[in-house]
């Protein structure tokens, strides 16, 4: 594995992890923008995600159909995703298509944003919002984020609402693009079997003319609003419960201990929640995960249970958290969790697509390169004292709670 890095005069940084034994290469533009960057001064919500769709809708050189067709002609596995803080456009191809996929992706990054395409795609976005309305866990997550983060920008919905999307104008989107897609706010990332010199040459010719301007982001601290509430939906059969509490941010070295903590408490199998809730079938789903974000982080617990057992399930989960905060993890739990994390990371790291996101986010959040083996070493270096100490710094029971289902 060889790491390479270069920054073009206009501020676009290019990074790559070259692995000549891979069968494919993956590449993508990582834009440091998402719903949290949708300024409250604009009367819009969901523009980051809508824009991500519009990036596939053509450029001065290409129609929307050209873009899809060209990806397909390369046999590419390609897509894009938008979160609260990142928008990523990626494609994985056989090495022979490296130049062509870069030509296409970099052209897409300067979109035409045509009015008629904008109006057509608006309907697709409204369908996407409707789709998620039929997924209770997603609805719960979105409402829980809004409640937990309150006035903090991470409360902003990624999809927006039907009202905000209908009200959005093409010029608002262009304005957002012109404030967020500066080359200094974008990283071109590549992993797998690739030609580094050719990559830099192509990026220079295709992206070197992008105009640089300054982009900023507010990253205030946040410890959560700690409010509880419920959304009653009598059409649902199950009670879906979400709890969120504060955790270390993506730049905080305590994140390794936080991953261990979430794994011990709430992995799908073999965790404390598993034995307390799933094994005895008190709940069908009970999991805890940790999500590091820019300047802050969250622990999330999701439970799905029969409505009449939901409050029992929540009480049991709380008791488990109390016990964990009092006693900390066992050595057996520490070893098992480190092994699970290391194994999952190794498997993901064997695929260029898996490496692409890890590599990209290491850079976007910390401007660092870390081989997968270094991450794994750091996971194994976490001590049980560090995990226990973390629960004193981030109270797991200081939660924002929301339930969605037939009961209050």
């Amino acid at each position, binding site marked *: 594995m060889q790491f390479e890095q270069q920054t073009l005069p206009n501020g676009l940084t290019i990074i790559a992890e070259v692995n000549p034994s891979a069968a494919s290469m993956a590449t993508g533009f990582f834009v440091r923008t998402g719903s949290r960057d949708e300024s409250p001064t604009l009367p819009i919500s969901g523009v980051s995600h809508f824009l991500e769709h519009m990036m596939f809708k053509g450029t001065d050189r290409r129609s929307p159909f050209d873009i899809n067709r060209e990806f397909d002609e390369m046999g590419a596995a390609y897509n894009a995703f938008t979160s609260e803080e990142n928008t990523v456009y990626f494609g994985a191809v056989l090495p022979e298509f490296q130049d062509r996929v870069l030509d296409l992706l970099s052209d897409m990054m300067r979109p035409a944003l045509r009015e008629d395409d904008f109006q057509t795609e608006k309907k697709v976005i409204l369908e996407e919002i409707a789709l998620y309305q*039929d997924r209770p866990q997603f609805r719960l997550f979105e409402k829980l984020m809004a409640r937990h983060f309150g006035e903090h920008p991470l409360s902003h919905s990624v999809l927006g609402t039907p009202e905000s999307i209908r009200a959005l104008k093409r010029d608002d989107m262009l304005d957002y693009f012109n404030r967020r897609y500066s080359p200094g706010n974008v990283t071109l990332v590549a992993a797998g079997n690739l030609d580094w010199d050719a990559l830099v040459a192509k990026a220079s010719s295709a992206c070197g003319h992008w105009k640089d301007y300054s982009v900023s982001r507010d990253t205030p601290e946040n410890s959560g609003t700690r409010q509880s509430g419920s959304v009653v939906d009598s059409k649902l059969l*199950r009670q879906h419960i979400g709890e969120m509490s504060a955790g270390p941010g993506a730049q905080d070295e305590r994140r390794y201990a936080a991953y261990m903590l979430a794994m011990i408490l709430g992995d799908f199998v073999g965790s404390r929640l598993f034995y307390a809730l799933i094994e005895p079938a008190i709940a069908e789903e009970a999991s805890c995960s940790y999500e590091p974000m820019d300047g802050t982080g969250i622990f999330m617990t999701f439970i799905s249970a029969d409505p009449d057992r939901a409050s029992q399930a929540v009480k049991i989960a709380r008791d488990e958290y109390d016990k964990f905060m009092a006693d900390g993890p066992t050595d057996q739990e520490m070893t098992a969790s480190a092994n699970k994390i290391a194994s999952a990371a190794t498997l993901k790291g064997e695929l260029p697509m898996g490496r692409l996101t890890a590599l990209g986010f290491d850079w976007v959040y910390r401007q660092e390169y870390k081989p997968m083996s270094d991450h794994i070493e750091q996971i194994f270096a976490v001590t049980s004292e560090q995990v226990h100490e973390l629960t004193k710094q981030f109270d797991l029971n200081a939660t924002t709670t929301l339930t969605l289902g037939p009961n209050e």
Partner: protein
Amino acid sequence: MAEEFFTREFDNGLTLVAQRMPHVSSSAITIALSAGVSCDPDDSAGSASTASLWLLRGAGDRDTRQINDVLDSLGCQHHEAAQSEHLLVSSAQLGKNLPELLEIYSDILRRPRLSDETFSPCRDLVAQTLDGLEDEPMRNCNILIREKFYPPPLGNHPLGTKESLADLKPKSLRSHLKNRLTPNGTIMAIAGQFDWEKLSGTIEKHFGDWEGPAPAEVSTSPAQQGTTHITKDTAQVQITLAYPAATINGELYYAARVTQMILSGGMGARLFTEVREKRALVYAIAARYHSLKDFAGLFVYAGTTPQRAQETLDVTVGELRRLAEGVSEDELARAKIQLKSALIMQGESTSARADALAGDFHHLGRLRGLDEISRAIDAVAVNDVMEYVRAYPAENLTTLTIGPDKLQAPNPT
């Protein structure tokens, strides 16, 4: 570069198939047991799903917690799933941990405790998952369409019904599993980092003296098919369609895969272009190919808001039928390169390879190399696609919708 394939058939009927992948450190295993959903006894629907949980609730000298602890300590990313034909037990981990996992798997498959105390929670979890499906209409309709399309019991609901689960008893499930968890007909597929001689010896040690009957064949009855609507107050109407396709062991298999790619390979394929890009009727639309040993289908999914549902159904069916008017050389070329490229990328994942090896052996009784598949894909011409479309037209569609209102069934042509 040719793959390093290995095969060994044991006297007890167990088949081991393997692919060594020199550049990886992981190793994945998939064990396909003839104990899938279609093998559930008639009055005990949900057996395979319950078994997929119950098997891990203690085996050999270890109780549930000890099983989980040892799997975790080996870093096993394990998964147990009740599919139509097979109960699948699979795991991916570092290659060096594979021998120890095999010992644990021999306990799980040969010496599971299957105790009365652990039975009820497993069955209750299946019942709760069944309830949970009601809250997720998209997942639900993709299960229900198989039930309508395939000849029973091949498409049977993996979770059974509330009633069948309530009637399920530990004693009868134990005796069912005794006849079904057997080396006879079981496929064990391994891909990744290993030394063949050692691996083969380890498997012989743990499974060589495993004994069991030949599992009874599953007999089928005619499929229900037709049109089904489930009235439900959902945000989107869930539309699913299915019609017959060539099976993996069928002559027109590669033409079937190319046809599916022309319909739904990438964002430039017909369904995405016509239904989403041009008309913006949906966010999600896809046609998937699914094959059992003797039956296969193209399954189409689209989700859209109620006022646009009829148009979505009509345009979608129109696209399926428009194939009969011809396909272009360009479309064919795109479909072929997408298939080949997906195959090569799948070849980088040990889990995907282990699943593919098990699938090849189940469907064909042998393993296919990349070269063979590439040549077969290359050989598909426009004429072959047209012959396929005539042999497997989009007629007699099985349709299933979930939403506020019933739609008009597509007209026969």
